């Protein structure tokens, strides 16, 4: 690409991301409380997808068990807040550590088994997790769930259990919902930044090397086992942060939220957004959020010819769309955008620079 073209490209990236930041920050000001709460719930989804993308997209280890790791994060936070009354951000951090350990444990079998067999192990984790929650319903509340509460003085001056909230400090002048959005957005932004640093580093290169050619990675000095297990741990920690935020936002956890379906939604978010990209999981989470919160409620409950309940059929619709998307754009939204940009760049370059320069193959000076 010519220098001028590259400059134009950089400038347009800065403009686009600037506009995006403004829009993302303005959303709670524009939307009402209901919609602010809705879009805040997309943040944990994006975090789980971010973690899964690190593992599957960059490191090539397939997991359909991240719903369970998300759940471990959620239950850790619920229990820490209920039993020890820690500050919410501390509970999130502690959940990340717990999930890191859980992720390393789930990742250990990955040293021996790969690909679809690893997917089967994580599938077992995903299906077992709700059962385990039921089994220990004394602690977890089982399918009825567990409310996350605080004792607060009510209006009559009596101490009573009250669902936890994210309280906006008065100096901000924000409503609680708006504050929650900004706080968790900041947490997510931090996580995305760390992952971006990671994938563009020595560690990121070794993750991708392992995904693409394990022998080449090993011969270059990469300790494949360590990188794989630690990547699993970091991936789980990110899912755990997502689960922790989810628990706080809902002020309740129940086994129904952490089934295999949750794992599959994360996978869909990664694939739709674009695997092995940083923006992919966020875009995928927004796409799924829009689908669940905007498209699904708008669907009719009865489609006349067959009296089909379109609302109940959303998983079917989502699945069909996923298959079609994979056929049309295997790189997801980010992949398609990159392709489009490359095509536009070539077209923009052609009249100015003449034919596209071919790379030189020979001739050391």
């Amino acid at each position, binding site marked *: 690409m010519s220098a001028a073209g590259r400059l134009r490209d950089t400038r347009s990236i800065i403009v686009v991301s600037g506009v995006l930041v403004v829009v993302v920050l303005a959303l709670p000001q524009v939307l009402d409380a209901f919609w602010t709460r809705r879009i805040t719930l997309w943040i944990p989804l994006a975090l789980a997808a971010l973690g899964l993308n690190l593992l599957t997209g960059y490191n090539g280890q397939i997991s359909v068990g991240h719903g369970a790791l998300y759940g471990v994060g959620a239950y850790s936070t619920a229990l820490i807040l209920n039993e020890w009354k820690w500050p919410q951000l501390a509970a999130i951090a502690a959940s990340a550590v717990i999930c890191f350990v859980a992720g390393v444990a789930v990742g250990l079998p990955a040293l021996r088994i790969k690909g679809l067999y690893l997917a089967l192990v994580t599938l077992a984790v995903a299906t077992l997790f709700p059962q385990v929650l039921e089994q220990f319903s004394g602690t977890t509340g089982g399918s009825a769930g567990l409310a996350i509460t605080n004792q607060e003085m009510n209006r009559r001056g009596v101490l009573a259990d009250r669902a936890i909230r994210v309280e906006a400090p008065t100096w901000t002048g924000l409503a609680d919902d708006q504050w929650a959005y900004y706080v968790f957005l900041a947490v997510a932004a931090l996580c995305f930044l*760390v*992952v971006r*640093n*990671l994938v563009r*580093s*020595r*560690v*990121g*290169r*070794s993750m*991708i*090397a392992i*995904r*693409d*050619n394990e*022998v*080449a*990675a*090993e*011969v*270059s*000095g*990469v*300790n*494949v086992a360590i990188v794989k297990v*630690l990547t699993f741990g*970091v991936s789980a920690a990110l899912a755990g942060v997502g689960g922790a935020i989810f628990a706080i936002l809902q002020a309740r956890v129940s086994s129904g939220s952490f089934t295999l379906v949750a794992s599959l939604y994360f996978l869909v978010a990664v694939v739709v957004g674009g695997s*092995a990209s940083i923006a992919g999981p966020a875009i995928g989470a927004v796409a799924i959020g829009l689908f669940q919160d905007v498209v699904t409620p708008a669907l009719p409950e009865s489609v006349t010819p067959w009296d089909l309940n379109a609302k109940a059929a959303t998983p079917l619709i989502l699945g069909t769309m996923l298959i079609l998307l994979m056929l049309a754009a295997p790189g997801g939204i980010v992949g398609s955008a990159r392709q489009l940009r490359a095509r536009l760049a070539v077209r923009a370059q052609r009249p100015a620079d003449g034919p596209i320069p071919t*790379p*030189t*193959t*020979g*001739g*050391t*000076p």
Partner: protein
Amino acid sequence: MSLLEVEDVEVRFGGVVALANLTFSIAAGEIFALIGPNGAGKTTLFNVVSRLYQPSQGAVRFAGTDLLALPAHRIAASGIARTFQNLALIPGLSVLDNVAVGAHAATSAGFWRSGLRLNRGEERRVRADALGLLDRLGLADLAQRPCAGLPYGTLKRIELARAMVARPRLLLLDEPAAGLTHAEVDELGGVIRSLRDEHDLTVLLVEHHMGMVMGISDNVVVMDLGAKIAEGPPADVQANPAVIAAYLGAPVEEV
């Protein structure tokens, strides 16, 4: 002093003996060639030295240390780098990042330092080294491109750059000339020699291109069916009747 000693190494795959009692040693600073017909066990020996194959008997020592006591991922740090016969590049990385992977053993930033960007100095150094080598091999223009779609000869040179970036003491080249044009082969011979001179390198070469082998090697081992059948300077080996029978075929007239 010999840098690499291969002593009585045997590798078996089931009933097949891929290497039989192979013994030779390479002096520091040499360009040492391993030749022989397909299936002679040349690549098998590379894989033993890289610790990808476990020999059923024998010893391999590098600068006095027992290589067989190290796991595969520690070989690079001990000062041995290699290329592959069928290329082992990473399609998902740019040319520059492919070369940077080769610097893995020479760098140390782990998850913490990388995630928090405390690795900036090291990253800058790695990129400078990688770019320097790409430049040295005439590939600097391609640094930011993905590997996918580049010509074969270019990919071979990228792999060479990746092997060199860790500043190895011993470089294993598995058929570096395969698939190259005549002009490229001549040039490659020159590049290997000058890399050896510039970087104080020892080179172990597996190659079928006799012109290049005879042109640049100091010593040659000829293998057939997993065993060594001759050893010595190129001129001696070329005249050896056993070598002619097993591999060269007729009086050497090509080149």
